[in-house]
């Protein structure tokens, strides 16, 4: 797989500036600034619990930051009215960790759902589009099954077909590779890459599978300790001598990111 070598300087599709976000009392972001370049694959990586999924929810407007600004294609997400926000969301697709297929609808109806809601296409055309999208994820044969009859990996591919049904400009993947066998993982990786190249989709991939994700990414945003620890191309990341980045790349237990959840010292707790 050939990687796009150019350091991305094109116009950003998503612009995140000085975002502060707290969940209950716990600070998730404290002055997070990042940008997602248009038409590229951007990987969001970082230790678990640093709020990578939260970032996707902020971009999708499902959560609102306490301070700072999240702009998608020039629109400030948190200040949009409900109707405008829903219009913006038609231009984004999101693939959830669990797939989140509608349990009471068949595979066909799941993929057709966004089309039925947002377009006036007639049934023949909807059928055509749905079959094309399912073909793209290799599940045209499963069109009449119910989600409960599919394996987890297949559900996620159907969810991907649903996410691209409306031909969005951006697609956000939340942990797409978790729980995939090597074949499913390879298929998904090439799907993400193909969608990006064929449709010029801006892609945002949140993932723990670092090597796989970096192999397709054009741009990496690494989040740690409530802010962006690194931002740039995967090559620059590999070459970086930042101890945090190195710890993460090599999976060392000790370094700037602590293995232990904050606690009083062991002697104090035991005595």
């Amino acid at each position, binding site marked *: 797989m050939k990687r796009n070598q150019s350091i991305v300087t094109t116009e950003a599709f998503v612009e995140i500036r000085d975002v502060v976000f707290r969940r209950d009392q716990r600070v998730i972001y404290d002055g997070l600034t990042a940008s997602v370049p248009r038409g590229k694959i951007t990987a969001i990586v970082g230790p678990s619990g640093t709020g990578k999924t939260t970032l996707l*929810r902020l971009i*999708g407007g*499902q959560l609102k930051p306490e301070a700072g600004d999240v702009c998608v294609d020039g629109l400030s997400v948190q200040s949009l009215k*409900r*109707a405008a926000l*829903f*219009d913006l*969301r*038609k231009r*984004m*697709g*999101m693939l*959830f*960790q*669990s797939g*989140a*297929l*509608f*349990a009471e609808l068949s595979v066909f109806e799941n993929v057709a*759902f*966004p089309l039925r*809601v*947002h377009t006036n296409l007639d049934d023949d055309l909807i059928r055509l589009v749905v079959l094309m999208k399912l073909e793209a994820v290799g599940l045209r044969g499963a069109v009449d099954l119910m989600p409960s009859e599919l394996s987890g990996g297949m559900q996620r591919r159907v*969810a991907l077909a*649903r996410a691209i049904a409306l031909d969005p400009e951006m697609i956000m993947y939340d942990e797409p590779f978790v729980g995939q066998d090597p074949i499913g993982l390879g298929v998904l990786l090439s799907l993400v890459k193909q969608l990006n190249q064929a449709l010029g989709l801006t892609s945002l991939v949140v993932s723990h599978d670092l090597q796989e994700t970096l192999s397709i990414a054009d741009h990496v945003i690494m989040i740690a300790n409530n802010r962006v620890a690194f931002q740039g191309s995967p090559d620059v990341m590999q070459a970086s001598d930042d101890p945090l980045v190195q710890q993460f790349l090599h999976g060392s237990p000790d370094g700037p990111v602590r293995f232990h959840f904050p606690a009083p010292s062991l002697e104090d707790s035991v005595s």
Partner: protein
Amino acid sequence: MMNWIAGVGRSTLSQLSDLGRATLILMQAIFGRSNVGVHWRLTIDQIHVVGVLSLSIIIVSGLFIGMVLGLQGYTILTDYGSEQALGQMVALSLTRELGPVVTALLFAGRAGSALTAEIGLMKATEQLASLEMIGVDPLRRVVAPRFWAGVISLPILSLIFVSVGCLGGALVGVSWLGVDSGSFWANMQASVDFSDDVFNGMIKSVVFAVVVTWIAVYQGYDLVPTSEGIARATTKTVVYSSLAVLGLDFFLTAVMFGEV
């Protein structure tokens, strides 16, 4: 002492903010923009789920409650030699009180808890979030049809409950204990007033329907999306709905029948 007062204040504030959030959710569900055609079809589907599927429990319970009323009423009235008033007693108890109240309690247990669990599970499996990301408001798509279905179904169920109950009363009173059939039904017809009894009962039922369904959809929409959260929310639905129904019933009765 100060701690206790602070605790009371804190819990009052959190109750009030819950109520505010529940009101906001309901308002957004009812008054948002919508596609009437699709919306209506979804509501019909839900009426089937919460209404039609509750029919069996409503009919069976109505029959038994009516039979018990017939039996108890007969033993009491016969002491005074006025067992021909049995029809009146059964019908008035049912239309004014037992019909709306018991139907609402059964509805909370049968349909309300199911609504909470269903919406909660949709939240836990990210279906609600994914609706949002598709650009569909889950309040309009998921909550509103279920709310309207409950509001439409419960009063109808309550009417059915009352009718079946009257038949149950007649079954025991007339067919078994030998009250005169003519005086049973004639007394019932003469004493039950449409606007005082039947209509007031329906008003109660509509109020209960709004409250029970509102509690159910709010608890589902607002729960913590874990298995424990779903279990707790389902319990809360049944407990809060039951308390609300019984409390409101006293209040409504006082307003409707209190001046006698």
